């Protein structure tokens, strides 16, 4: 009886030990994955900031006016040739 119990406990112990090894291994891998993804997130943040900056640079009023005037032959609006619609008016 005693021998059987000992054998069972020993087997259990070995099993636990192996599962600890496995868990550590898994944890390490997940950590590496997490690090990699965090790095990726940081890079995406930087890219996002870069894109917002580009948007602001390209959307500069000066540039828009320049393109509107020269490429698109647009001119400034004047009240004389604007029809104003009043909400609720007949």
């Amino acid at each position, binding site marked *: 009886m005693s021998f059987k119990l000992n054998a069972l406990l020993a087997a259990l112990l070995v099993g636990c030990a192996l599962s600890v090894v496995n868990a550590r291994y898994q944890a390490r891998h997940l950590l590496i994955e997490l690090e990699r993804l965090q790095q990726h997130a940081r890079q995406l943040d*930087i890219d996002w900031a870069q894109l917002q900056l580009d948007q*602001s640079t390209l959307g500069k009023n000066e540039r828009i006016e320049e393109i509107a005037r020269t490429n698109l032959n647009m001119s400034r609006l004047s009240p004389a040739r604007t029809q104003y619609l009043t909400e609720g008016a007949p």
Partner: protein
Amino acid sequence: MTRPNQRATPRSNARVAASKGMAFTKSPVLAVRLPDWRSRMVLFVLFAAFAALAVRAVWLQGVSTQFLQKQGKSRYERTLELPATRGRILDRNGAVLASSLPVRAVWAIPEDVLKSPPEKIRDLSRLLEMPEADLRKKLDSDRTFVYLKRQVEMPIIAEIEKLKIDGIDTRKEYKRFYPQGEVMTHLVGFTNVEDKGQEGMELQHQKTLMGVAGSRRVIKDRLGHIAEDLGMFREPHQGRDLTLSVDSKLQYIAFTSIKNAVEKFNAKAGAAVVLDVHTGEVLALANYPTYNPNDRSKLTGEQLRNRVITDTFEPGSTIKPITIALGLETGRIKPDTVFDNNPGYMTVTGKRIRDTHNYGVQTVSGIIQKSSNIGAVKVAQMIPEQEMWEMYTKIGYGQAPRYGFPGAAAGRVRPYKTWKPIEYANMAFGHGLSVSLLQMARSYMIFARNGDIIPLSFLKVDEEPVGQQIISPKTAAQVRTMLESVVSPEGTASKAQVAGYRIGGKTGTAEKIVNGRYSRANNIGYFAGIGPMSKPRFIIAVMVDDPSGALRTGGSVAAPTAADLFSSALRAASVPPDSSITDIIIPEVPLEESM
């Protein structure tokens, strides 16, 4: 331990001492007679040595654990820097005005670099946009660390790394980018190479914008992967974003108007500011000449000056509505009270004050519309000095401003007890005291907002601030009517008329002080206005410094600039027109205000 064996072996082949008939090895002379204590001694020493090892082991394992643990950690633990970025600066609609991006500083160990082939150094100098001679000069140094170039952008760094030059390395740093460039720079300011604010809002809000880098401890494995996270050593603090009150579109409009004005009137400088009447937000603040904050290598003091906030000047005729408002408020005058301005000049304690024309008999409204100095002085003479001083103080003249902008000027209003009669008379038409353009624009709040004044803000305001009542709504409305009459074909600001909108305002011209005297040839022209008059939305103040063309007065240089600004700004803000007049009448010889 046993005694040496003395057994005799007859078959032994040992030599025999024939004389005594005894084997040599059995000779008693050879018998070792060791005392007992020696063996015990050896036993004891060995035991003691083991005991000492055991004690040492216990000592290291149990008691003095720190030293070895520290040594161990330093061999497998690493401290990782956690970067923190400086916050962005945004305009009221969320457009980026300033943003930090990671770049690299390129540094070198000169000795190692000079060993590499010359064509590689040539490539490096090309990539760094630096003449080869300059690069070699930097490398010709005894030091072991030399910065070659700072704030190099990432694509270039990638190419430099491809060259694989020994002794070249990079260090991470941040560079601040200002996409709006020279248009917005006087407001936003800039940072230095260490990412620290130097001017404008960058300086004012350095503490909140600034990011503080953190660090954490990790265990790294042989391959450089992080094997275990040991937690935060120092928490990083990301810089907070800052949303300004400025509107990029209005700012651009203000900037182009002022730039065109300076070029058209051949002026030395110009400035304009646009305020929101309801919230006190600064919607635009433009200065010309200006500079590009992304490239400050040729920066001069003239370009750096913020003429709206840090410069003060004599307000000239733009102060007259304030004088009149106080007269109306205290019941001393009414809009139709009549003043005799004949014969076009008057004398106060022996000094002469004149108008450009003899305006004859004028009502209070006429005094504002024609900008009569004599009329303003006559109104002021009815008001005690102390009341006038209190009025100036309440609307912020001579008071340290609290807008939250570095270097904001307070202007100068001397204590009323020191005013001489002639000085008080001069103040009635804006001489002998100084204000900044922003203070002047703010003081017009009392007319635009039914008599109260609110604090200004450079940051976006979510709720309307509570105002401080200065004059009654009735007085404010009366002055508004007068201001609107100024911007008419009969007023001094006929050129400030805008098609489709009712504008009100006041022109001003001040002589500049050159070498300690007022100079007739050097003027500053102003216009401070409100629009649209039916439902005030913007206060716009414009200053044109030292126009050197044929046109020099506020009415002829600042007023048309303000009109240009008003028409674009009101349209851009989708304000419905409140006037059906679409063709502007500007008289051939517009009325000029006196100085």
